[in-house]
């Protein structure tokens, strides 16, 4: 009789996908290390109130709280699960080409951006990436003013610490995420002047109503959206389509916002501008997957109309051996699909039987989620004419304050038009956020302006960040310490001779 050594799965990200993955991997008999930079699991979707708030009714802010809470408790209490909160993966080290297996994880443990964090390494049998996405916000004049927030910021502050960003708030951009953000603001007592969806009704309807049977499968999601819509109705908040905010104005902070009617390609209809007083503006134009870790692991991407995402097979395997991906980094499909993907990935990564009936059901649910994602992308595309609202002095890179005119100049110089050279010349993307915010926008504008000049070597792209999170020099100089409860990777079993 031989006892099978359980596989060790490292799951990065404890949002809906990562938590489901950890749960499924544990169910398959694996040992799991669950890693998240936050103090609590949940990710952005299930952002929890701090323990110190001692909330009697945390469920009142959360859609699907009870199921999440059960899973959270089950995973964290599991004897084969090590939960590493406040832990960031600052680098992934790929094995040499002749070696198999996932990359080595380089971790920092301790308070966010703290100076005394400890450095560790981890060598699992499988790496499962479920690191999620963040708002993509297109630049517009005045978007750098204090009082302009991403929609995600407004939601995180309201749900996560009961802070509302303002009293007269405009919510603008595109996508179904506008609704829960407006609902969260209303719940916390803000007045929301309007919710502005940039796409016209025709575009939205085309995406949402084609093949309605697919929606039925996403009942969880549509039910959730219905709740938000009724909150808007209750508070008499107008939901306008084909309109967006093209400028924020104010002296040192937002005081008013200018909205305008848009054509289907997001070109501004002249004369349709309208100015509203506002003390906060919340914006989102979609989501940007956090691709630095998948790229550091060497995972191939697939290009979609909504941008690049990690390419996975039917079992959530990426192009790299023993590296799996789940959730928003594979496509923006919402929490139900993320959970299904996480469960498939965790089960397979944990050594579960790919033919198990439960996993077949999960794959179906995952596929319905992906279909839903495609519909979303069709209903809420970014219109090609959006740069029409930029002015020469509009800030594109918030960190370095690179303006649109500088980008245009760099892109049109034949001697300096390669994206990397233009980046060094304009500094767009070289600041502390390392192009997380402006990267996709700069890449898009540069391609349009320069006619896609050759970079030659594999283009680094806006998501490549070999140092995935900042690390202080003192932390980097220190040698890694052993991680508690983690033996080194089990060497392949040899025939015993004794």
């Amino acid at each position, binding site marked *: 009789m031989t006892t099978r050594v359980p596989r060790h799965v490292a799951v990065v990200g404890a949002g809906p996908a990562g938590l489901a993955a950890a749960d499924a991997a544990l169910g398959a008999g694996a040992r799991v290390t669950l890693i998240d930079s936050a103090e609590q699991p949940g990710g952005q979707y299930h952002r929890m109130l701090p323990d110190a708030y001692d909330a009697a009714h945390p469920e009142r802010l959360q859609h699907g709280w009870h199921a999440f809470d059960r899973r959270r408790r089950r995973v964290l209490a599991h004897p084969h699960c090590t939960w590493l909160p406040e832990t960031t993966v600052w680098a992934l080290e790929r094995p040499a080409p002749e070696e198999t297996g996932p990359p080595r994880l380089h971790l920092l443990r301790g308070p966010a951006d703290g100076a005394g964090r400890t450095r560790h390494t981890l060598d699992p049998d499988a790496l499962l990436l479920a690191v999620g996405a*963040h708002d993509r916000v297109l630049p517009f004049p005045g978007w750098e003013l204090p*009082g302009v927030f991403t929609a995600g910021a407004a939601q995180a502050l309201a749900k996560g610490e009961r802070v*509302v960003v303002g009293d007269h708030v405009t919510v603008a951009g595109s996508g179904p995420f506008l609704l829960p953000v407006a609902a969260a603001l209303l719940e916390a007592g803000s007045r929301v002047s309007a919710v502005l969806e940039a796409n016209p009704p025709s575009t939205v309807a085309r995406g949402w109503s084609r093949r309605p049977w697919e929606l039925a499968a996403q009942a969880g999601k549509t039910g959730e959206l219905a709740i938000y819509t009724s909150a808007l109705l209750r508070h008499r908040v107008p939901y306008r389509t084909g309109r967006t905010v093209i400028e924020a104005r104010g002296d040192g902070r937002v005081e008013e916002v200018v909205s305008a009617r848009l054509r289907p390609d997001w070109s501004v209809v002249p004369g349709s501008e309208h100015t509203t007083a506002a003390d906060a503006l919340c914006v989102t134009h979609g989501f940007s997957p956090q691709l630095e870790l998948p790229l550091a692991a060497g995972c191939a991407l697939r290009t979609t109309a909504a941008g690049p995402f990690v390419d996975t097979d039917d079992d959530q395997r990426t192009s790299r051996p023993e590296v799996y991906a789940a959730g928003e980094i594979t496509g923006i499909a919402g929490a139900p699909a993320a959970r299904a993907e996480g469960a498939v990935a965790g089960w397979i990564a944990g050594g579960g039987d790919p033919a198990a009936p439960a996993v077949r059901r999960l794959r179906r649910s995952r596929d319905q989620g992906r279909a839903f994602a495609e519909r979303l992308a069709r209903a809420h595309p970014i219109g090609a004419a959006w740069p029409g609202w930029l002015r020469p002095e509009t800030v594109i890179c918030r960190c370095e304050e690179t303006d649109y005119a500088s980008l245009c100049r760099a892109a049109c110089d034949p001697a300096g038009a390669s994206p990397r050279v233009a980046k060094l010349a304009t500094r767009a993307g070289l600041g*502390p956020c390392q192009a997380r915010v402006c990267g996709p926008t700069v890449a898009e504008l540069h391609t349009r302006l320069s006619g896609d000049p050759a970079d030659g070597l594999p283009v680094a792209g806006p998501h490549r960040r070999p140092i995935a999170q900042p690390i202080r020099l003192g932390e980097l100089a220190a040698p890694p310490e052993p991680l508690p409860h983690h033996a080194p990777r089990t060497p392949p079993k040899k025939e015993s001779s004794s």
Partner: protein
Amino acid sequence: MSPRRVPAGSDATGRRDRPLRITVDGEPADGIAGQSLAGVLLAAGRLAWRRGPSGAARGVFCGIGVCFDCLVTVNAERDVRACRRRAQDGDEVTTQSRHTDRNPPPTADGTPGTEER
């Protein structure tokens, strides 16, 4: 009006507040245990605290650690994302700016520098 905290009395979550106090450039700011530094700063009436390269004011933008707009120095550690760091009672926050920094780097022997350069 500015950002504010939902009053505990009318908060549907039934939370219980434990006050804490931090200082920002020496000025006191009150918050409650569990808040991020960004949350404390916003609810204490500060919408912006950093200055960009041109001197323009910046505060919170993404709120989830992506944009690095909300960087502050906390207890002499520079470049801390205020939206990600939990506030601790007594934290000394100093604001940062690219060119006229109030936080000169430490001197050669590791003690915080005082000279203005």
